[in-house]
Protein backbone atom coordinates (compact mmCIF):
# COMPACT_ATOMS: atom_id res chain seq x y z
CA UNK A 1 0.00 0.00 0.00
CA UNK A 2 2.77 2.38 0.93
CA UNK A 3 4.65 1.23 -2.15
CA UNK A 4 1.57 1.87 -4.22
CA UNK A 5 1.47 5.44 -3.03
CA UNK A 6 5.17 6.02 -3.66
CA UNK A 7 4.86 4.58 -7.14
CA UNK A 8 1.79 6.69 -7.85
CA UNK A 9 3.67 9.78 -6.80
CA UNK A 10 6.55 8.75 -9.03
CA UNK A 11 4.20 8.43 -12.00
CA UNK A 12 2.54 11.73 -11.11
CA UNK A 13 5.97 13.34 -11.06
CA UNK A 14 6.63 12.01 -14.54
CA UNK A 15 3.31 13.44 -15.76
CA UNK A 16 4.22 16.84 -14.42
CA UNK A 17 7.68 16.77 -15.97
CA UNK A 18 5.99 16.21 -19.32
CA UNK A 19 4.05 19.44 -18.80
CA UNK A 20 7.20 21.47 -18.98
CA UNK A 21 8.62 19.50 -21.87
CA UNK A 22 5.74 19.43 -24.32
CA UNK A 23 4.60 23.03 -24.37
CA UNK A 24 2.80 22.62 -27.68
CA UNK A 25 0.42 20.23 -25.99
CA UNK A 26 0.13 21.65 -22.53
CA UNK A 27 0.35 25.38 -23.15
CA UNK A 28 -3.08 25.57 -24.78
CA UNK A 29 -4.56 23.80 -21.80
CA UNK A 30 -3.15 26.48 -19.55
CA UNK A 31 -4.06 29.43 -21.76
CA UNK A 32 -7.57 28.28 -22.63
CA UNK A 33 -9.12 28.79 -19.17
CA UNK A 34 -7.72 32.33 -19.16
CA UNK A 35 -9.05 32.95 -22.62
CA UNK A 36 -12.48 31.62 -21.66
CA UNK A 37 -12.54 33.90 -18.66
CA UNK A 38 -11.61 37.04 -20.55
CA UNK A 39 -13.52 36.40 -23.77
CA UNK A 40 -16.69 35.21 -22.10
CA UNK A 41 -16.76 37.89 -19.45
CA UNK A 42 -16.07 40.55 -22.06
CA UNK A 43 -18.42 39.43 -24.79
CA UNK A 44 -21.49 38.43 -22.80
CA UNK A 45 -21.25 40.99 -20.06
CA UNK A 46 -24.57 42.42 -21.14
CA UNK A 47 -26.51 39.40 -19.95
CA UNK A 48 -25.74 40.27 -16.35
CA UNK A 49 -28.24 43.09 -16.66
CA UNK A 50 -31.00 40.55 -16.34
CA UNK A 51 -32.76 40.82 -12.97
CA UNK A 52 -31.91 37.22 -12.06
CA UNK A 53 -28.26 38.17 -11.82
CA UNK A 54 -29.06 40.47 -8.90
CA UNK A 55 -26.36 42.86 -9.92
CA UNK A 56 -23.52 40.38 -9.64
CA UNK A 57 -20.40 41.04 -11.66
CA UNK A 58 -20.34 38.90 -14.79
CA UNK A 59 -16.61 38.48 -14.43
CA UNK A 60 -17.11 36.95 -11.01
CA UNK A 61 -19.91 34.87 -12.48
CA UNK A 62 -17.60 33.52 -15.16
CA UNK A 63 -14.71 32.54 -12.89
CA UNK A 64 -16.19 29.12 -12.01
CA UNK A 65 -16.68 28.42 -15.73
CA UNK A 66 -12.98 29.02 -16.29
CA UNK A 67 -11.88 26.97 -13.28
CA UNK A 68 -14.11 24.05 -14.23
CA UNK A 69 -12.99 24.23 -17.86
CA UNK A 70 -9.36 24.33 -16.74
CA UNK A 71 -9.97 21.27 -14.61
CA UNK A 72 -11.54 19.58 -17.61
CA UNK A 73 -8.45 20.27 -19.69
CA UNK A 74 -6.18 18.89 -16.97
CA UNK A 75 -8.18 15.69 -17.05
CA UNK A 76 -8.12 15.45 -20.83
CA UNK A 77 -4.34 15.78 -20.80
CA UNK A 78 -4.06 12.81 -18.48
CA UNK A 79 -6.00 10.80 -21.04
CA UNK A 80 -3.93 12.04 -23.94
CA UNK A 81 -0.70 11.17 -22.16
CA UNK A 82 -1.98 7.68 -21.49
CA UNK A 83 -3.06 7.26 -25.10
CA UNK A 84 0.39 8.34 -26.24
CA UNK A 85 2.03 5.93 -23.80
CA UNK A 86 -0.08 3.05 -25.02
CA UNK A 87 0.41 3.82 -28.67
CA UNK A 88 4.16 4.34 -28.22
CA UNK A 89 4.64 1.25 -26.07
CA UNK A 90 5.80 2.99 -22.91
CA UNK A 91 2.90 1.49 -21.01
CA UNK A 92 4.49 -1.95 -21.46
CA UNK A 93 7.31 -0.90 -19.18
CA UNK A 94 4.81 0.02 -16.49
CA UNK A 95 2.74 -3.12 -16.89
CA UNK A 96 5.69 -5.51 -16.89
CA UNK A 97 7.00 -4.04 -13.63
CA UNK A 98 5.75 -5.17 -10.24
CA UNK A 99 3.97 -1.85 -9.74
CA UNK A 100 0.31 -2.46 -8.80
CA UNK A 101 -1.82 -1.80 -11.88
CA UNK A 102 -3.92 0.79 -10.14
CA UNK A 103 -0.96 3.12 -9.85
CA UNK A 104 -1.22 3.62 -13.60
CA UNK A 105 -4.50 5.42 -12.92
CA UNK A 106 -3.79 6.98 -9.54
CA UNK A 107 -0.50 8.54 -10.64
CA UNK A 108 -1.99 10.53 -13.55
CA UNK A 109 -4.99 11.40 -11.36
CA UNK A 110 -2.72 13.05 -8.84
CA UNK A 111 -1.00 14.92 -11.65
CA UNK A 112 -4.34 16.08 -13.09
CA UNK A 113 -5.42 17.32 -9.68
CA UNK A 114 -2.20 19.26 -9.29
CA UNK A 115 -2.54 20.76 -12.76
CA UNK A 116 -6.10 21.87 -12.00
CA UNK A 117 -4.78 23.42 -8.80
CA UNK A 118 -2.47 25.47 -10.97
CA UNK A 119 -5.08 26.54 -13.53
CA UNK A 120 -7.54 27.48 -10.80
CA UNK A 121 -4.91 29.67 -9.21
CA UNK A 122 -4.17 31.32 -12.54
CA UNK A 123 -7.86 32.06 -13.08
CA UNK A 124 -8.32 33.47 -9.59
CA UNK A 125 -5.27 35.66 -10.07
CA UNK A 126 -6.65 36.91 -13.38
CA UNK A 127 -9.92 37.69 -11.62
CA UNK A 128 -7.97 39.59 -9.02
CA UNK A 129 -6.33 41.67 -11.72
CA UNK A 130 -9.79 42.33 -13.14
CA UNK A 131 -10.92 43.66 -9.79
CA UNK A 132 -12.55 40.56 -8.34
CA UNK A 133 -11.29 39.62 -4.88
CA UNK A 134 -11.27 35.91 -3.94
CA UNK A 135 -14.30 34.96 -1.86
CA UNK A 136 -12.79 34.30 1.55
CA UNK A 137 -11.07 31.17 2.82
CA UNK A 138 -13.94 28.69 2.81
CA UNK A 139 -15.31 29.95 -0.50
CA UNK A 140 -11.93 29.71 -2.19
CA UNK A 141 -11.38 26.26 -0.71
CA UNK A 142 -14.65 25.08 -2.22
CA UNK A 143 -13.74 26.48 -5.64
CA UNK A 144 -10.44 24.59 -5.51
CA UNK A 145 -12.02 21.41 -4.19
CA UNK A 146 -14.64 21.27 -6.91
CA UNK A 147 -12.07 21.98 -9.61
CA UNK A 148 -9.75 19.23 -8.37
CA UNK A 149 -12.68 16.84 -8.12
CA UNK A 150 -13.80 17.61 -11.65
CA UNK A 151 -10.27 17.15 -12.98
CA UNK A 152 -10.19 13.68 -11.42
CA UNK A 153 -13.52 12.80 -12.98
CA UNK A 154 -12.50 13.99 -16.44
CA UNK A 155 -9.11 12.29 -16.09
CA UNK A 156 -10.90 9.01 -15.39
CA UNK A 157 -13.12 9.57 -18.43
CA UNK A 158 -10.19 10.37 -20.71
CA UNK A 159 -8.01 7.53 -19.45
CA UNK A 160 -10.87 5.09 -19.83
CA UNK A 161 -11.15 6.15 -23.46
CA UNK A 162 -7.38 5.89 -23.93
CA UNK A 163 -7.26 2.39 -22.49
CA UNK A 164 -9.92 1.23 -24.90
CA UNK A 165 -9.01 3.12 -28.03
CA UNK A 166 -5.23 2.76 -27.54
CA UNK A 167 -4.43 5.61 -29.87
CA UNK A 168 -3.98 9.35 -29.64
CA UNK A 169 -6.58 9.65 -32.43
CA UNK A 170 -9.18 9.28 -29.71
CA UNK A 171 -8.25 12.69 -28.30
CA UNK A 172 -11.14 14.53 -30.03
CA UNK A 173 -13.59 12.14 -28.40
CA UNK A 174 -12.12 12.90 -24.98
CA UNK A 175 -12.33 16.63 -25.68
CA UNK A 176 -15.78 16.87 -27.21
CA UNK A 177 -17.51 15.03 -24.38
CA UNK A 178 -15.90 17.23 -21.73
CA UNK A 179 -16.64 20.46 -23.63
CA UNK A 180 -20.24 19.51 -24.24
CA UNK A 181 -20.75 18.52 -20.63
CA UNK A 182 -19.52 21.91 -19.47
CA UNK A 183 -21.31 24.00 -22.08
CA UNK A 184 -24.65 22.26 -21.65
CA UNK A 185 -24.65 23.09 -17.98
CA UNK A 186 -24.87 26.65 -16.65
CA UNK A 187 -21.86 27.99 -18.50
CA UNK A 188 -23.17 31.42 -19.53
CA UNK A 189 -26.24 32.16 -17.45
CA UNK A 190 -27.93 30.92 -14.26
CA UNK A 191 -30.39 28.07 -14.57
CA UNK A 192 -33.46 30.29 -13.97
CA UNK A 193 -32.68 32.17 -17.16
CA UNK A 194 -32.12 29.21 -19.46
CA UNK A 195 -34.74 28.51 -22.08
CA UNK A 196 -35.91 25.53 -24.06
CA UNK A 197 -33.93 22.32 -24.46
CA UNK A 198 -30.94 23.77 -22.59
CA UNK A 199 -32.95 24.19 -19.44
CA UNK A 200 -33.99 20.54 -19.47
CA UNK A 201 -30.52 19.24 -20.26
CA UNK A 202 -28.80 21.37 -17.66
CA UNK A 203 -31.23 20.11 -15.00
CA UNK A 204 -30.00 16.60 -15.68
CA UNK A 205 -26.31 17.47 -16.12
CA UNK A 206 -24.15 16.80 -13.02
CA UNK A 207 -21.71 19.51 -14.10
CA UNK A 208 -24.51 22.04 -13.54
CA UNK A 209 -24.51 21.33 -9.83
CA UNK A 210 -20.74 21.43 -9.65
CA UNK A 211 -20.67 24.81 -11.32
CA UNK A 212 -23.57 26.18 -9.27
CA UNK A 213 -21.81 25.23 -6.06
CA UNK A 214 -18.57 26.76 -7.26
CA UNK A 215 -20.42 29.88 -8.35
CA UNK A 216 -22.22 30.18 -5.04
CA UNK A 217 -18.85 29.92 -3.30
CA UNK A 218 -17.46 32.59 -5.62
CA UNK A 219 -20.44 34.92 -5.19
CA UNK A 220 -20.41 34.47 -1.44
CA UNK A 221 -23.87 32.93 -1.31
CA UNK A 222 -22.68 29.43 -0.44
CA UNK A 223 -24.88 27.50 1.95
CA UNK A 224 -25.20 23.79 2.58
CA UNK A 225 -28.11 23.54 0.15
CA UNK A 226 -25.93 24.85 -2.66
CA UNK A 227 -22.90 22.83 -1.67
CA UNK A 228 -24.20 19.32 -1.24
CA UNK A 229 -25.54 18.83 -4.80
CA UNK A 230 -22.11 19.86 -6.11
CA UNK A 231 -20.29 17.45 -3.82
CA UNK A 232 -22.65 14.62 -4.68
CA UNK A 233 -22.23 15.35 -8.39
CA UNK A 234 -18.42 15.27 -8.14
CA UNK A 235 -18.42 12.12 -6.03
CA UNK A 236 -20.91 10.45 -8.36
CA UNK A 237 -18.92 11.33 -11.47
CA UNK A 238 -15.69 10.08 -9.93
CA UNK A 239 -17.34 6.82 -8.88
CA UNK A 240 -18.91 6.26 -12.28
CA UNK A 241 -15.97 7.33 -14.42
CA UNK A 242 -13.48 5.71 -12.06
CA UNK A 243 -15.19 2.41 -12.77
CA UNK A 244 -14.99 3.22 -16.47
CA UNK A 245 -11.23 3.76 -16.11
CA UNK A 246 -10.61 0.68 -13.98
CA UNK A 247 -12.49 -1.64 -16.30
CA UNK A 248 -10.47 -0.16 -19.14
CA UNK A 249 -7.30 -0.91 -17.19
CA UNK A 250 -8.32 -4.52 -16.71
CA UNK A 251 -8.60 -4.97 -20.45
CA UNK A 252 -4.93 -4.03 -20.93
CA UNK A 253 -3.62 -7.58 -20.88
CA UNK A 254 -6.51 -9.13 -22.64
CA UNK A 255 -6.14 -7.77 -26.13
Amino acid at each position, binding site marked *: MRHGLTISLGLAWRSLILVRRMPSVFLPSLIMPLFILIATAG*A*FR*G*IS*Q*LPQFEGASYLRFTIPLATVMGAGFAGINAGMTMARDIEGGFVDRLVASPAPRITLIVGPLIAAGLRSLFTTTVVLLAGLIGGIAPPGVSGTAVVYLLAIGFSCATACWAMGVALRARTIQAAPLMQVVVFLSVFTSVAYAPREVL*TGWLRDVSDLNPVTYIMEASRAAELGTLGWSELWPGLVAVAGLIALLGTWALTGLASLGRR
Partner: protein
Amino acid sequence: MSPAVVQTAALGRRAVVGTLRTPQALVPSLFFPLVLMAIFTGSFGGAPGTIPGFPPVRGFLDFALAGAILQGILIGGTSAGSAFALDIEGGFFDRLVASPVSRTAILTGRILGGVTLAMAQTLLFLAIGVAFGARVEGGVRGVLILLVLAALLAVAVSGLGVILALRTGSAEAVQGTFPLFFALMFFSSAFFPRETMTGWFKVLADLNPISYLVEAMRDQIIETEATSATLIGLGVAVALAALALWAANSAFHRRLEGDR
Protein backbone atom coordinates in the same frame (compact mmCIF):
# COMPACT_ATOMS: atom_id res chain seq x y z
CA MET B 1 -14.16 29.95 -72.79
CA SER B 2 -10.59 30.82 -71.98
CA PRO B 3 -8.44 27.95 -70.70
CA ALA B 4 -7.70 29.81 -67.48
CA VAL B 5 -11.38 29.86 -66.62
CA VAL B 6 -11.82 26.18 -67.42
CA GLN B 7 -8.80 25.29 -65.35
CA THR B 8 -9.98 27.43 -62.47
CA ALA B 9 -13.31 25.66 -62.52
CA ALA B 10 -11.62 22.26 -62.63
CA LEU B 11 -9.27 23.03 -59.78
CA GLY B 12 -12.12 24.57 -57.87
CA ARG B 13 -14.11 21.42 -58.33
CA ARG B 14 -11.17 19.36 -57.12
CA ALA B 15 -10.90 21.56 -54.02
CA VAL B 16 -14.56 21.11 -53.20
CA VAL B 17 -14.59 17.36 -53.77
CA GLY B 18 -11.40 16.97 -51.77
CA THR B 19 -12.86 18.74 -48.78
CA LEU B 20 -16.11 16.83 -48.96
CA ARG B 21 -14.17 13.58 -48.88
CA THR B 22 -12.31 14.37 -45.67
CA PRO B 23 -14.94 14.41 -42.95
CA GLN B 24 -12.39 15.60 -40.41
CA ALA B 25 -12.13 18.86 -42.33
CA LEU B 26 -15.87 19.25 -42.61
CA VAL B 27 -17.14 18.28 -39.18
CA PRO B 28 -15.59 21.11 -37.15
CA SER B 29 -16.95 23.79 -39.47
CA LEU B 30 -20.45 22.35 -39.24
CA PHE B 31 -20.52 20.98 -35.72
CA PHE B 32 -19.03 23.75 -33.59
CA PRO B 33 -20.97 26.73 -34.95
CA LEU B 34 -24.31 24.96 -34.78
CA VAL B 35 -23.76 23.54 -31.30
CA LEU B 36 -22.55 26.88 -29.99
CA MET B 37 -25.53 28.61 -31.59
CA ALA B 38 -27.86 26.18 -29.86
CA ILE B 39 -26.16 26.74 -26.52
CA PHE B 40 -26.18 30.52 -26.87
CA THR B 41 -29.85 30.50 -27.87
CA GLY B 42 -30.70 28.46 -24.80
CA SER B 43 -28.55 30.58 -22.50
CA PHE B 44 -29.52 34.04 -23.72
CA GLY B 45 -33.15 33.52 -24.66
CA GLY B 46 -34.10 36.07 -22.07
CA ALA B 47 -31.95 38.84 -23.45
CA PRO B 48 -34.01 40.24 -26.34
CA GLY B 49 -36.41 42.83 -25.11
CA THR B 50 -34.90 42.90 -21.62
CA ILE B 51 -31.32 44.02 -21.97
CA PRO B 52 -30.68 47.63 -22.92
CA GLY B 53 -28.70 47.80 -26.11
CA PHE B 54 -30.10 44.59 -27.50
CA PRO B 55 -31.68 45.08 -30.93
CA PRO B 56 -35.33 44.10 -31.20
CA VAL B 57 -35.54 40.57 -32.59
CA ARG B 58 -38.09 37.82 -32.77
CA GLY B 59 -35.84 35.53 -30.76
CA PHE B 60 -32.19 35.06 -29.90
CA LEU B 61 -31.83 32.50 -32.65
CA ASP B 62 -32.41 35.20 -35.26
CA PHE B 63 -29.65 37.18 -33.64
CA ALA B 64 -27.23 34.29 -33.35
CA LEU B 65 -27.59 32.89 -36.84
CA ALA B 66 -25.19 35.35 -38.45
CA GLY B 67 -22.48 34.54 -35.91
CA ALA B 68 -22.82 30.85 -36.67
CA ILE B 69 -22.53 31.48 -40.40
CA LEU B 70 -19.45 33.60 -39.86
CA GLN B 71 -17.88 30.98 -37.63
CA GLY B 72 -18.49 28.27 -40.20
CA ILE B 73 -16.80 30.29 -42.91
CA LEU B 74 -13.79 31.08 -40.76
CA ILE B 75 -13.26 27.44 -39.84
CA GLY B 76 -13.92 26.25 -43.38
CA GLY B 77 -11.52 28.80 -44.80
CA THR B 78 -8.69 27.43 -42.68
CA SER B 79 -9.18 24.03 -44.19
CA ALA B 80 -8.82 25.51 -47.68
CA GLY B 81 -5.42 26.81 -46.67
CA SER B 82 -4.30 23.57 -45.09
CA ALA B 83 -5.45 21.56 -48.10
CA PHE B 84 -3.33 23.85 -50.23
CA ALA B 85 -0.40 23.27 -47.88
CA LEU B 86 -0.90 19.53 -48.24
CA ASP B 87 -0.68 19.97 -52.00
CA ILE B 88 2.62 21.71 -51.53
CA GLU B 89 3.90 19.12 -49.06
CA GLY B 90 2.81 16.26 -51.27
CA GLY B 91 4.26 17.67 -54.47
CA PHE B 92 1.00 18.16 -56.34
CA PHE B 93 1.63 21.88 -56.36
CA ASP B 94 4.97 21.44 -58.09
CA ARG B 95 3.33 19.22 -60.67
CA LEU B 96 0.75 21.90 -61.42
CA VAL B 97 3.38 24.58 -61.70
CA ALA B 98 5.42 22.47 -64.08
CA SER B 99 2.37 21.89 -66.27
CA PRO B 100 0.84 24.29 -68.82
CA VAL B 101 -1.89 25.19 -66.33
CA SER B 102 -2.38 28.93 -66.06
CA ARG B 103 -0.61 30.25 -62.98
CA THR B 104 -3.56 32.30 -61.87
CA ALA B 105 -5.80 29.27 -62.06
CA ILE B 106 -3.77 27.41 -59.45
CA LEU B 107 -4.47 30.15 -56.98
CA THR B 108 -7.99 31.11 -57.95
CA GLY B 109 -9.07 27.49 -58.25
CA ARG B 110 -8.36 26.87 -54.59
CA ILE B 111 -10.01 30.09 -53.54
CA LEU B 112 -13.00 29.40 -55.73
CA GLY B 113 -13.36 26.06 -53.97
CA GLY B 114 -13.38 27.83 -50.62
CA VAL B 115 -15.97 30.31 -51.83
CA THR B 116 -18.26 27.61 -53.16
CA LEU B 117 -18.18 25.70 -49.91
CA ALA B 118 -18.76 28.90 -47.92
CA MET B 119 -21.83 29.77 -49.92
CA ALA B 120 -23.20 26.25 -49.63
CA GLN B 121 -22.60 26.35 -45.92
CA THR B 122 -24.38 29.70 -45.61
CA LEU B 123 -27.46 28.33 -47.32
CA LEU B 124 -27.36 25.23 -45.16
CA PHE B 125 -27.16 27.22 -41.94
CA LEU B 126 -29.92 29.54 -43.06
CA ALA B 127 -32.11 26.55 -43.79
CA ILE B 128 -31.39 25.05 -40.38
CA GLY B 129 -32.08 28.35 -38.69
CA VAL B 130 -35.37 28.76 -40.48
CA ALA B 131 -36.31 25.19 -39.63
CA PHE B 132 -35.87 26.09 -35.97
CA GLY B 133 -38.00 29.17 -36.15
CA ALA B 134 -35.82 32.00 -37.38
CA ARG B 135 -36.93 34.33 -40.17
CA VAL B 136 -34.80 36.15 -42.72
CA GLU B 137 -36.42 39.59 -42.68
CA GLY B 138 -34.39 40.70 -45.67
CA GLY B 139 -36.03 38.12 -47.89
CA VAL B 140 -34.41 37.02 -51.13
CA ARG B 141 -32.43 40.23 -51.40
CA GLY B 142 -31.10 39.62 -47.91
CA VAL B 143 -30.05 36.09 -48.74
CA LEU B 144 -28.22 37.29 -51.84
CA ILE B 145 -26.34 39.94 -49.90
CA LEU B 146 -25.47 37.32 -47.29
CA LEU B 147 -24.05 35.11 -49.99
CA VAL B 148 -21.96 37.95 -51.33
CA LEU B 149 -20.63 38.71 -47.85
CA ALA B 150 -19.92 35.02 -47.30
CA ALA B 151 -18.09 34.78 -50.59
CA LEU B 152 -15.95 37.83 -49.87
CA LEU B 153 -15.11 36.60 -46.40
CA ALA B 154 -14.22 33.20 -47.81
CA VAL B 155 -11.89 34.85 -50.30
CA ALA B 156 -10.17 36.68 -47.46
CA VAL B 157 -9.83 33.65 -45.20
CA SER B 158 -8.84 31.19 -47.93
CA GLY B 159 -6.44 33.76 -49.24
CA LEU B 160 -4.83 34.13 -45.86
CA GLY B 161 -4.58 30.36 -45.56
CA VAL B 162 -3.01 30.11 -49.00
CA ILE B 163 -0.46 32.78 -48.12
CA LEU B 164 0.56 30.87 -45.02
CA ALA B 165 0.73 27.66 -47.00
CA LEU B 166 2.99 29.26 -49.58
CA ARG B 167 5.26 30.76 -46.97
CA THR B 168 5.56 27.77 -44.64
CA GLY B 169 4.65 24.78 -46.80
CA SER B 170 3.20 23.13 -43.72
CA ALA B 171 -0.41 22.16 -43.13
CA GLU B 172 0.20 22.19 -39.41
CA ALA B 173 1.23 25.83 -39.47
CA VAL B 174 -1.98 26.73 -41.27
CA GLN B 175 -4.03 24.77 -38.76
CA GLY B 176 -2.32 26.79 -36.07
CA THR B 177 -4.23 29.87 -37.20
CA PHE B 178 -7.51 28.35 -36.16
CA PRO B 179 -7.18 29.38 -32.50
CA LEU B 180 -6.41 32.89 -33.70
CA PHE B 181 -9.65 33.12 -35.64
CA PHE B 182 -11.53 31.60 -32.78
CA ALA B 183 -10.19 34.29 -30.43
CA LEU B 184 -10.92 36.96 -33.01
CA MET B 185 -14.56 35.96 -33.14
CA PHE B 186 -15.07 36.31 -29.42
CA PHE B 187 -13.53 39.75 -29.42
CA SER B 188 -16.20 40.97 -31.81
CA SER B 189 -19.95 41.31 -31.96
CA ALA B 190 -20.29 37.85 -33.49
CA PHE B 191 -22.17 36.44 -30.51
CA PHE B 192 -23.52 39.43 -28.60
CA PRO B 193 -24.23 43.09 -29.43
CA ARG B 194 -21.38 45.57 -29.27
CA GLU B 195 -23.65 48.03 -27.52
CA THR B 196 -23.69 45.86 -24.41
CA MET B 197 -19.90 45.71 -24.10
CA THR B 198 -17.83 48.02 -21.93
CA GLY B 199 -14.28 49.13 -21.37
CA TRP B 200 -11.26 47.94 -23.32
CA PHE B 201 -13.18 44.93 -24.57
CA LYS B 202 -15.59 47.25 -26.38
CA VAL B 203 -12.65 49.13 -27.88
CA LEU B 204 -11.26 45.88 -29.28
CA ALA B 205 -14.63 44.87 -30.65
CA ASP B 206 -15.02 48.29 -32.28
CA LEU B 207 -11.66 47.90 -33.98
CA ASN B 208 -12.26 44.34 -35.10
CA PRO B 209 -13.30 44.11 -38.78
CA ILE B 210 -15.19 40.93 -38.01
CA SER B 211 -17.69 42.97 -36.00
CA TYR B 212 -18.68 44.91 -39.11
CA LEU B 213 -18.82 41.82 -41.23
CA VAL B 214 -21.10 39.95 -38.89
CA GLU B 215 -23.30 42.97 -38.30
CA ALA B 216 -23.84 43.31 -42.02
CA MET B 217 -24.76 39.62 -42.22
CA ARG B 218 -27.05 39.96 -39.25
CA ASP B 219 -28.75 42.97 -40.78
CA GLN B 220 -30.07 40.79 -43.59
CA ILE B 221 -31.73 38.52 -41.06
CA ILE B 222 -33.06 40.90 -38.43
CA GLU B 223 -33.09 44.15 -40.41
CA THR B 224 -32.92 46.47 -37.48
CA GLU B 225 -29.29 47.44 -37.54
CA ALA B 226 -28.76 50.79 -39.27
CA THR B 227 -28.80 50.44 -43.05
CA SER B 228 -25.27 51.70 -43.07
CA ALA B 229 -24.33 48.40 -41.40
CA THR B 230 -24.75 46.55 -44.67
CA LEU B 231 -22.68 49.07 -46.56
CA ILE B 232 -19.91 49.18 -43.98
CA GLY B 233 -19.80 45.41 -43.83
CA LEU B 234 -19.62 45.12 -47.59
CA GLY B 235 -16.88 47.70 -47.65
CA VAL B 236 -14.84 45.85 -45.03
CA ALA B 237 -15.40 42.55 -46.81
CA VAL B 238 -14.32 43.92 -50.16
CA ALA B 239 -11.23 45.51 -48.61
CA LEU B 240 -10.21 42.31 -46.84
CA ALA B 241 -10.82 40.19 -49.91
CA ALA B 242 -8.84 42.52 -52.14
CA LEU B 243 -5.98 42.68 -49.66
CA ALA B 244 -5.90 38.92 -49.31
CA LEU B 245 -5.93 38.37 -53.06
CA TRP B 246 -3.15 40.83 -53.63
CA ALA B 247 -1.01 39.36 -50.85
CA ALA B 248 -1.70 35.80 -52.00
CA ASN B 249 -0.73 36.67 -55.52
CA SER B 250 2.56 38.24 -54.50
CA ALA B 251 3.37 35.36 -52.14
CA PHE B 252 2.60 33.01 -55.02
CA HIS B 253 4.93 34.79 -57.38
CA ARG B 254 7.67 35.07 -54.81
CA ARG B 255 7.53 31.34 -54.31
CA LEU B 256 7.59 30.62 -58.00
CA GLU B 257 10.62 32.81 -58.38
CA GLY B 258 12.34 30.60 -55.84
CA ASP B 259 12.25 33.16 -53.08
CA ARG B 260 10.51 31.28 -50.31
